[in-house]
């Protein structure tokens, strides 16, 4: 089972779950969690391609590290937005934040 395809399948499943979470959840925190899943699916792809792509250097690893750092920063900013959303609207339900409705 130690092949590129199995890693890619896992990554795709994670990605799909992340998308599903992002699209269906109403709670802003839950959406953030979906995003984390998507980012991590990408990380798995990086690592997998690094390993099976025959690369000499640790390029995939480095990218994954960047993504993790980026995810942390993103979570910090997103949580700040959520707090502000709660202060303005009174809930963390994204359906209530429809000020841009046409």
């Amino acid at each position: 089972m130690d092949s590129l395809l199995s890693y890619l399948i896992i990554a795709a499943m994670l990605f799909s779950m992340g998308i599903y979470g992002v699209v269906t959840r109403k709670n802003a925190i839950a959406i953030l969690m979906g995003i984390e899943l998507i980012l991590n699916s990408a990380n798995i792809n990086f690592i997998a391609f690094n390993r099976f792509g025959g690369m000499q250097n640790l390029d995939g690893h480095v990218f994954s590290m960047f993504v993790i750092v980026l995810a942390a920063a993103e979570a910090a900013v997103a949580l700040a937005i959520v707090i502000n959303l709660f202060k303005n609207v009174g809930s963390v339900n994204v359906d209530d934040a429809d000020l841009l409705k046409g």
Partner: protein
Amino acid sequence: MMDNSNLTLALLNLFLPLLSFAILIFFGKKFGDKAHLVSLGLIGGMLAIAIRFFSNVFHHGAEPILETSIQWFTTGKFSVDLGFLINNVAAIMLLVVALISFLVHLYSVEYMKGDPRYSRYFAFLGVFTFSMNGIVLADSLVMMYIFWELVGLSSYLLIGFWFEKESAANASKKAFLTNRVGDIGMFIGIMILFFEIGSFQISGLIEGVHNGAFSGDMTLLTIAGVLVFMGAIGKSAQFPLHIWLPDAMEGPTPVSALIHAATMVAAGVYMVVRIFPILTPDALELIAYVGGITALMAAIIAITQNDIKRVLAYSTVSQLGYMIMALGVGAYQAGFFHLTTHAMFKACLFLCSGSVIYAMHHALHELKDHDTDPQDMRNMGGLRDKMPITFWAMFISTLAISGVPFFSGFLSKDAVLAGSLSYYHHHHGWSLFLPIAGFGAAVITAFYMFRLIFMTFFGNPQNKDIHSHVQESPFTMTFPLILLAGLSFAIFFTLPATINPFDSHGWFTHAVPMVDNVAGLNMHEVEEGLHHTHHSAMMISLAVAGIGILMSILFYLFKSVDAKQMANALNKIKLYNLSFNKFYIDEIYNILLYKPFLAFSWLCSKLDWDLYDQKFIDGWGWITIKLSDKSGEADYNWLDQKIVDGFGRLTQYFGRNLKLTQNGVVQNYLLGGIMGLLLLIIVFQQF
């Protein structure tokens, strides 16, 4: 050095009157009723220069006093010079113009007093004098033609000076247009001469003809000569273009004296004198007949006219006919001599008639009578005692024009008649007409001039009221009369050679020597002929003048023959009516020219207005309106309403519907994005 001062004087002579014009036309209002001082001063200066030139006549032989020219412009082979040629003929003519112009200016001071356009009148006289001097001084036909047109213009302005009167306005137009007919011929003639010889200079033309420029084709030279002479037919009022001159009497009387008696109408004669050497015998023959017909016909018309100025006008036409006839028969000196003497006595006659009209006008004004015509001789009579100076001046000049010995007219007319008689002796046949016309006109001239004198000054006053109010004119008006009447005596033209009135060998004949005709006329023959016929012509002319005067005395002084009965008797064969209606020439023109012309203009206007304008042009308008109506409709209904507004509506429709997708739910957007991504992936999978 001598030439230089002469040139300066000639320039001054030409431009002083123009200066008078310029000052008065621009600043005339400032001078008001003092305007005449400006022009009198300047014209006086001109008169002094003319006298200075004239004094040379006695010293120089046939040599020109001044001959100079400058190039005006050149285009290719076509080069035009301007210059002066003052020979004895020109010097005499200059003095005639300057003297009469000055006297008329002086006379006008009183005559025109109180006219609302007083200063403009003197301005116009100035521009006329300027143009007339130009004709006299010109050394080339082009320069002469330019000034020729300018005198035409000033004549137009002065005839129509009282343009409020419709008759005056019409007369000025008639004069201008009639002259134009002659001028076209003159211009073509000048051009023929130029293209054959290559010069406009009169001296150049004479030299060219002399060297045989036309040797192969004398007919062309004849045609050119006749065409140039057409200018003289117009300007000197010769048959058949004489019709404008009697109408020109609508202008102020001093103007008639200056322009339409003494100077401008003589310009045609002067021009023929200048080009005389290049006129062929054939051309001269035609000229002689034109002159003869004019002299006789105008004299016959003059008998029956009642307007004092019209009698004089026809008399002028008749006398101009004499001059032209004299030139035609080769008696070149006689023609020019008659021009000079005629200028003096005819100017005098006109100024006298002006004096009478002035007096009549004032008398009628005092009586508050505005219906009586002050120019009609039937309203005058017995004015001799009331206006002695005018009477004597007019009487003396009448003696001169009738050809009575001791007066200037006798000498010059005698020479003209001798010329016509000698022409008959050489040519026989039809040329008998010329002496008949000459002597016939002489009888009639004496008759109608004395008729004028008797009707105006003798007999019982026709109207006692008017008669008692008539007064002699003031001195500024009578002074020119006295001077001109004095110059009507023969002695001024015969000094110093002789005081014998029957001998015309005075300074004049010495100053104007016979010239050679380079176009084929034998001048020696002419001269000899003149010499032979001189005495017989004198006898006959004395006799005919006597007959004319005697008849007039019987008819109008003693009334022993009733003029009315005589007129009725002659009218049995329509003779009186023929004369009274001026040979129906105006009517003939009316039928032959004006009516067809008016009919043609009517037709043209019909075509132009009713057909072209109303149908064609307006048709285009109609089509354009319809087209623009349609295109406007299409533009609004289709382009504007459908396409332009359609885009707007389409955008609005999409906007309204697409706005529904913007529901503010972030997850929907995201879903859309993912769907799009999937779609793209699927699409790319296909390739």
